[in-house]
């Protein structure tokens, strides 16, 4: 089932609320009206009692001519759906007015309201009539100058009131339905209007494409609720743009770097073919070509490695490694090289490091290769490691001329060479340190370089053992 749109959902919610409120108000109004009507009816009933008392008392001989009295009283009572019964002391009905509801009700046998008291609402009681529920009151009165005691019983139908209330209920329900519909429609319109900024955001987002990543949502003129979304969206675009730029820059660098060995290959092969040569020369050419091919192959391999590290596609299998053993293994490999270059190679290692063994070796290997390459004869290269609860630091330190501060932050960038005139030995193509950085970032750590007072230090910081998998790290390596 498709999810309802926010606008529709809100509108429905509004209409439900409106219906509930209307219903509650309607119920209250109905209740109040019915209360008021019954009060009014009761007051009219009491008025009639007072009126009859007065009438009986003021007439000289009222009960002598009951028929006349009835005709008078018929006029008074008939319209209001009341019926009056006068009973004399002997219990005979003297006057009985016409009953609007048909059969005359029997007079209730309650004790009447005494003469000395004005009847009150508490004296009125519910009374079942043939035509339905009713109210009745009984009062004592004295008739004429004789002061003949008389019981007044007035019965009143409720049917009229109920009819009015029924009509009123119908009106209320109709009002409720219409009101709810209007509220829903208005709510829908208002919500749609309120959502317009969201549509604007979507429209803007649609305008942004890979070709034009520069566009950003303007977060000033959107409502507060959307601002956060806009900010997050813009941050995502920033990252995307950076990624795309890096990728295209990377492609350009790679193309440029591939051109160099290819150019060498074409040139020397064309020159060799331009005239006949002896087999020794051909052999030299082929061997030289092979070196270039290997350089190309290495570049492709390193580029692929970086691309995969970039997309976190490299399976990392970190284990606890003895840092001393790992560093000794690398130092053992470089021993011959360092000795040959007149460089002392020292190890000062302690602790364990949580890392992928192959990648760790590759990273440290690149650092040591770099250090050995840049250390003058008589210098020294030190491999050192320290571990504590913040993780493991591995340092490769070498003596020699310092690297200028403006280069330090860029050393780990692809194809970056502090000295553009000097290619890396073995055709490293300037990817060695970029690979170091990619490896340490895969481990969720950081790499940095410092250089001062004739010594340069490259530091790898590996996080402690239960390392959370790194979020895609971008940005430059951390610096102290």
């Amino acid at each position, binding site marked *: 089932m498709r999810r309802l749109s926010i606008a529709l959902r809100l509108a429905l919610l509004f209409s439900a609320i409106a219906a509930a409120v209307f219903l509650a108000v309607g119920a209250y109004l109905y209740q109040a009206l019915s209360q008021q009507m019954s009060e009014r009816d009761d007051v009219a009933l009491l008025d009639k009692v007072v009126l009859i008392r007065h009438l009986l008392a003021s007439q000289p001989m009222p009960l002598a001519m009951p028929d006349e009295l009835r005709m008078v009283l018929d006029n008074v009572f008939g319209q209001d759906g009341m019926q009056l019964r006068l009973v004399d002391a002997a219990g005979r009905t003297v006057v009985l007015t016409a009953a609007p509801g048909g059969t005359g009700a029997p007079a209730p046998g309650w004790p009447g309201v005494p003469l000395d008291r004005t009847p009150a609402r508490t004296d009125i009681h519910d009374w079942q009539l043939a035509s339905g529920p009713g109210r009745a009151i009984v009062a004592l009165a004295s008739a004429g100058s004789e002061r003949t005691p008389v019981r007044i019983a007035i019965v009143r139908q409720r049917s009229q009131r109920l009819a009015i209330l029924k009509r009123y209920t119908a009106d209320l329900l109709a009002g409720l339905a219409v009101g709810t519909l209007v509220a829903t429609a208005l709510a829908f319109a208002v919500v749609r209007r309120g959502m317009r900024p969201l549509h604007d955001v979507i429209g803007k987002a649609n305008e942004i494409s890979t070709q034009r990543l520069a566009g950003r949502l303007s977060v000033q003129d959107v409502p507060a609720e959307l601002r956060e979304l806009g900010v997050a969206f813009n941050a995502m675009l920033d990252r995307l743009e950076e990624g795309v730029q890096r990728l295209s820059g990377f492609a350009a660098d790679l193309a440029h770097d591939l051109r160099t060995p290819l150019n060498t290959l074409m040139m020397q092969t064309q020159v060799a073919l331009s005239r006949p040569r002896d087999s020794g020369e051909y*052999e030299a050419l*082929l061997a030289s070509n*092979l070196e270039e*091919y*290997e350089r190309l192959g290495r570049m492709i*391999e390193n580029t692929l490695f970086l691309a995969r590290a970039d997309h976190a596609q490299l399976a990392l299998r970190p284990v606890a490694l003895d840092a001393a053993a790992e560093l000794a293994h690398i130092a053992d*490999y470089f021993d*011959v090289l360092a000795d040959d270059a007149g460089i002392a190679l020292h190890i000062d290692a302690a602790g364990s490091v949580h890392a992928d063994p192959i990648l760790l070796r590759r990273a440290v290997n690149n650092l040591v290769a770099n250090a*050995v390459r840049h250390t003058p004869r008589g210098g020294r290269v030190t491999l050192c490691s320290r571990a504590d609860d913040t993780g493991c630091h591995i340092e490769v330190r070498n003596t020699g001329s310092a690297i200028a501060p403006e280069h330090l932050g860029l050393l780990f960038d692809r194809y970056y060479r502090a000295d553009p005139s000097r290619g890396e*030995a073995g055709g490293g193509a300037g990817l060695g340190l970029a690979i170091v950085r990619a490896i340490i970032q895969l481990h969720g750590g950081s790499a940095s370089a410092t250089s001062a007072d004739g010594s340069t230090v490259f530091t790898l910081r590996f996080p402690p053992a239960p390392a959370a998998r790194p979020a895609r790290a971008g940005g430059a390596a951390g610096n102290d």
Partner: protein
Amino acid sequence: MRILVVEDEPKTGNHLLQGLREAGFDAALARTGPEGLRLALAEDYDLVVLDVMLPAMDGWTVLRSLREHKDTPVLFLTARDDIPDRVRGLELGADDYLVKPFAFAELLARLRTLLRRGPVREEAVIRIADAEIDVLRHRVTRAGQRIDLTPKEFALLHLLARRRGEVLSRRQIAAQVWDMNFDSDTNVVDVAIRRLRAKLDDPWPVKLVHTVRGIGYTVDDKA
């Protein structure tokens, strides 16, 4: 040893064929998957070198169909080295793989391993020309004269001497002697070889360590 090469790229196929024949193998070439499969099933080859990217019928399919009938060892060549690709090949029953571009010496080494050319001679004393390598006591002499080698130099000489006549690439040497299993981009092997030569060859007229340009090094008494 009969080897079938299945490779659609004409130059690559021809050069593989030439290289294998010159290395002493009886090699045949198929240029498409179906043809390769037909040959592999019809003839008895000791090994099949199979390119993955073939037209009409890719290497995986050839491999799967071949495995239904035969257990001929298969080494597959691929230009893609993403892990799933390799795993897939090995799961389908390939015995080994090489990623393009590869060194021909590397291919030969892998083929020899797969063909179980028998374990390399593990003699207690290896003699090449007037040199004697005492493997157990780690002693090397030439014409009876003791030559003092460091442990790494000895390991390097022992590796090359055991596989006398075989050309080993720098990468193979780095992996065997220093246990460095990735391309280190350094000239450690070259420097180590130079130092070994200084002790082993320079004082004597007959040279034992030979450079094969662009490929690697070999030890033999004839150049």
